[in-house]
């Protein structure tokens, strides 16, 4: 058989990586190549260099080192029992692709993941060689994200953290039980221990020794994980509780929710349906409320009938509709926390309100200029020249503020 071309390998191994939701290249230390001795920079905030028609950003070269795999996870297209075409990159090929794409300003760096070949250690070892070669042989200063294999030896994870900006370990599914059912070779305990280990190493990397020297930085952009939504029966409350545990326990930078895509040649153990994209979107919105708006997970899920978020309105609006006694809020007097809970006012708008309020009273038009979504906010606020009167108690409030129904694909 003729050897496979690089183009063909790239097609197979990027196709295999596309079910991974993560694309961020943000966070971490700032670097540059102003000295002329290397290539690349990281600015702290990532750049999306292109967008595909699925609405996702292309920031990194997101590929699998190989899609050969000895595991048999039901939700994964690369499981050993799937009959997809297989390919494998050499270390040099990945290095070359990364550098050539980077030089043409196509990408921010590399996001490398892999199927498990031979053993977890062998696979992780090869991934580390790629990262090492980029950093040491080619003085690459762009972004590197390595998806670590929870079962690999601690020394390998340690080395990975020294070369990579971010490490991630996927929890895969929201509950331990689902992991055991659909990914029999993976162990939820080991995944958690690996995440705990990354947190400890990262924190150790921030402490100075008694001589005042800093140890080398470990995964400066932190760690993240991914959960597949819609492949098992877990409801949104379970998913969000699980995410809260991960954020607080392992200091994750992000939890990615990936709507389960009907994977070509999917396993018969899983339903073949359209991916629940709206649900994924609502989960991200809820995730944001948890991290930036001071919401508790119970508050969000209390407004969610049957433990699932309302697909028709966003979770903040759903909460407000269920707590009308808290409104209307006086924009000129309310505390920051109360303002953040008004539908249609985002973090930035609230910041602007607070800054301007110090000088003068705000009026309706001011809010519009500050970027508030007044169509949503209107019933929930009062201003010197605006009062919602009985709007907030009106029975048809939901219909007035909710976006017009679109064709929602309910899972």
């Amino acid at each position, binding site marked *: 058989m003729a050897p496979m071309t690089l183009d063909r390998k790239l097609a197979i191994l990027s196709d295999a990586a596309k079910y991974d939701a993560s694309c961020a290249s943000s966070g971490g230390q700032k670097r540059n190549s102003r000295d002329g001795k290397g290539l690349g920079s990281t600015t702290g905030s990532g750049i999306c260099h292109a967008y595909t*028609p699925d609405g996702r950003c292309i920031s990194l070269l997101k590929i699998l080192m190989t899609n050969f795999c000895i595991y048999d996870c039901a939700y994964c297209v690369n499981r050993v029992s799937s009959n997809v075409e297989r390919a494998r990159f050499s270390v040099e090929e990945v290095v070359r692709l990364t550098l050539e794409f980077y030089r043409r300003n196509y990408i921010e760096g590399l996001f490398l993941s892999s199927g498990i070949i031979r053993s977890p250690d062998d696979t992780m070892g090869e991934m580390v060689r790629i990262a090492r070669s980029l950093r040491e042989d080619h003085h690459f200063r762009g972004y590197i994200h390595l998806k670590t294999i929870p079962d690999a030896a601690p020394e390998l994870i340690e080395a990975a953290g020294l070369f990579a900006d971010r490490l991630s370990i996927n929890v895969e599914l929201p509950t331990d039980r689902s992991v055991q059912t659909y990914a029999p070779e993976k162990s939820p305990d080991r995944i958690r221990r690996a995440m705990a280990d990354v947190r400890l190493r990262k924190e150790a990397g921030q402490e100075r020794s008694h001589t005042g020297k800093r140890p080398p930085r470990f995964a400066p952009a932190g760690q993240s994980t991914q959960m597949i939504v819609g492949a098992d029966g877990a409801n949104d409350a379970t998913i969000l509780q699980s995410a809260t545990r991960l954020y607080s326990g392992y200091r994750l930078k992000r939890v990615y929710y990936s709507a389960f895509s009907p994977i070509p040649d999917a396993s018969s153990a899983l339903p073949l349906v359209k991916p629940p994209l709206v649900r994924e979107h609502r989960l991200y919105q809820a995730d944001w409320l948890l991290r930036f708006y001071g919401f508790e997970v119970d508050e969000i899920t209390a407004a969610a009938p049957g433990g699932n978020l309302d697909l028709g309105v966003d979770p903040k609006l759903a909460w407000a509709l269920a707590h009308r006694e808290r409104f209307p809020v006086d924009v000129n007097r309310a505390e920051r926390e109360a303002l953040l809970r008004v539908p249609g006012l985002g973090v930035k708008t609230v910041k602007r309100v607070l800054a301007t309020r110090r000088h003068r009273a705000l009026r309706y038009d*001011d809010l519009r200029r500050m970027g508030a979504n007044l169509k949503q906010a209107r019933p929930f606020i009062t201003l010197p020249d605006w009062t919602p009167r009985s709007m907030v108690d009106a029975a048809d409030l939901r219909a007035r503020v909710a976006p*017009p129904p679109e064709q929602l694909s309910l899972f």
Partner: protein
Amino acid sequence: MRRITLPETGTFEAWRDAARSLLAADVPPEAVLWQRGAAEEDLFAEDALPPAGGGQVTVPRGFVDLARRVVWHRDPERFGLLYALLWALRRERGLLSDRGDPRVARLQGMAKAVGRDRHKMTAFVRFREIGEPEAPRRAFAAWFEPAHFIMEPVAPFFTDRFGDMDWTIATPDLTAVFEGGRLRFEAGQPRPPLPEDATEELWRTYFRSIFNPARLKVSAMTAEMPRKYWHNMPEAALIPGLIAGAGARAAEMAEALAGCRRCPLWRDATQAVPGEGPQDAKLMVVGEQPGDREDLAGRPFVGPAGQLFDRVAAEAGLDRGAAYVTNAVKHFKFRARGKRRLHRAPERDEIEHCRWWLDLERAGVRPRLILAMGATALASLTGSGAGLLRRRGGVEETEDGTPVLVTVHPSYLLRLPEDARAAEVARFRADLSRAAEITGCTL
């Protein structure tokens, strides 16, 4: 009146120095005329700056950040507006944190536009290799058309990132050249010829493969990557094909179309009406927009005009089932009168917004011939619908070279007085049989 001419590079520093002197000399904003580039004569212009001097001017910290961005905006009023704000700040110290103030809001808006443009430039510049791949310092070049004068302020991003190679970024306003570790600026230029770069093919392979056809969120893509950038991006040419080929192509598109909010017509309509017919049809028939019946049924060409079309097509020997029939605009536009909905012709920008969908249908079906029925279809396909009756019967071309046969819309025939109708129907029949002949879509 004083006229201040600011240079094309180092604009911020020049503006700052000028503003300082003017402020020190108490020159009010309305007495200054600002411009960028070469100085021109102005009958009423008194010359230049008052003598330098005048102590330091203290401004709130945020103002300098604001000005540093606003000076690169393309709006000719930007320098004057900045100076007016500076002037006002002397009395109203807190003005800058007042995001509700219209002056501040306008300048913040400009700063934001410049920031966004800069960000998009760092994202969408695409280099091609122009030197030897084996050279110790490799050489690359790119062409970019920013919305504002941002080449100079954005250059440090590229020097920081591509420190070990030589590169040139040409824009219509300014060209940045980085050679041997030194950056210099040259005059702007038209698009330079750049050699082919084989890596682009690998990049396109990547773009094609990383796309997940099970999800289609076209508006999310165009919101972040507006079409104006596409022609300089090697991967963008793939987009229409990827969308058209995604999953069960037509069903996917119909679903995306159902959520279309590109123009306000969706508000009053029942539903968007996608085209219908074989996905590999050789003939595509494009009408104006769904009518009352179509809007209710969700299918094209089922109302009176559609029935007339069917009848005449059958007489002309055109197999409607072999053609892909669709409309230039996908939502019904009407005026409600009592209990009736009266048809209204779509506006130019509605046609323009909806062309996105027609283009997708065209990219998917790739017909050999398009039959444009009426001025709206003609405008959408060729860019102009003027002079329909003069152009009918002729074969024109879309932008990508697909032949377009021009004819009238069947509803035009319905509106004609009884005596004139027969002759016009005969001409319409002749056009349809010609279309059937060219494409072989005969009964």
